[in-house]
């Protein structure tokens, strides 16, 4: 079993338009690296200097990973990951 990842509209050009993709990894960082190997460029949009970008929210199941372990959050088969850009401005 793999980890299901929900891709937001703005990042679907990296996934040939797919709304959901699957990946593997023991941590969020590994999952993002795995996704980037098939959807090149995705990692750059999520990660900056080894940390998650401030205005991209990533959820493990129902929890924002910022309140878990950030990019080092452990993952298990069957988990669901949701990526949502922040809705923000000035």
């Amino acid at each position, binding site marked *: 079993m793999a980890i299901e990842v929900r891709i*937001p*509209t703005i990042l679907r050009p990296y996934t040939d338009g797919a709304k959901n993709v699957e990946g593997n990894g023991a941590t969020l960082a590994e999952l993002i690296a795995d996704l980037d190997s098939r959807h090149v460029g995705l990692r750059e949009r999520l990660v900056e200097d080894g940390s998650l970008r401030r205005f991209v929210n990533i959820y493990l199941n129902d929890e924002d990973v910022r309140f878990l372990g950030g990019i080092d959050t452990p993952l298990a088969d069957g988990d669901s990951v949701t990526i949502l850009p922040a*809705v923000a*401005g000035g």
Partner: protein
Amino acid sequence: MLRLDSTLLDAVIAHARADHPDEACGVIAGPEGSDTPTRFIPMVNAARSPTFYEFDSRDLLALYRDMDDRNEVPVVIYHSHTATEAYPSRTDISYASEPEAHYLLVSTRECGIDEGPVEVRSFRIVDGLVTEEPVEVL
């Protein structure tokens, strides 16, 4: 062009007035592929600021799950400016992340919390490029 029902626009303006001098923000969702806003969803500005807005992270997840379940998309993303014109700020442009949405801006700088002139303008924001569009109120 953004076409929206007058009751929806009135709801956005009422929210902007109620939250003045902080920025108000929210979404008008609509059926996927329709480009028609139908469901008014006011959001909490987690920043509670006169110069910044951000949907709370938990609220954001709940909002998108709910829209997914209903086959909706955020047709309109609205927010208010409370001391400046209804034109996207540099921050608005850099964080805009829904290329298919209409970004509706309301300025309450003249009216504040009272009845009075309100400026309403709509924009597309794609890859850092701002394009203003007409608003047709139905």
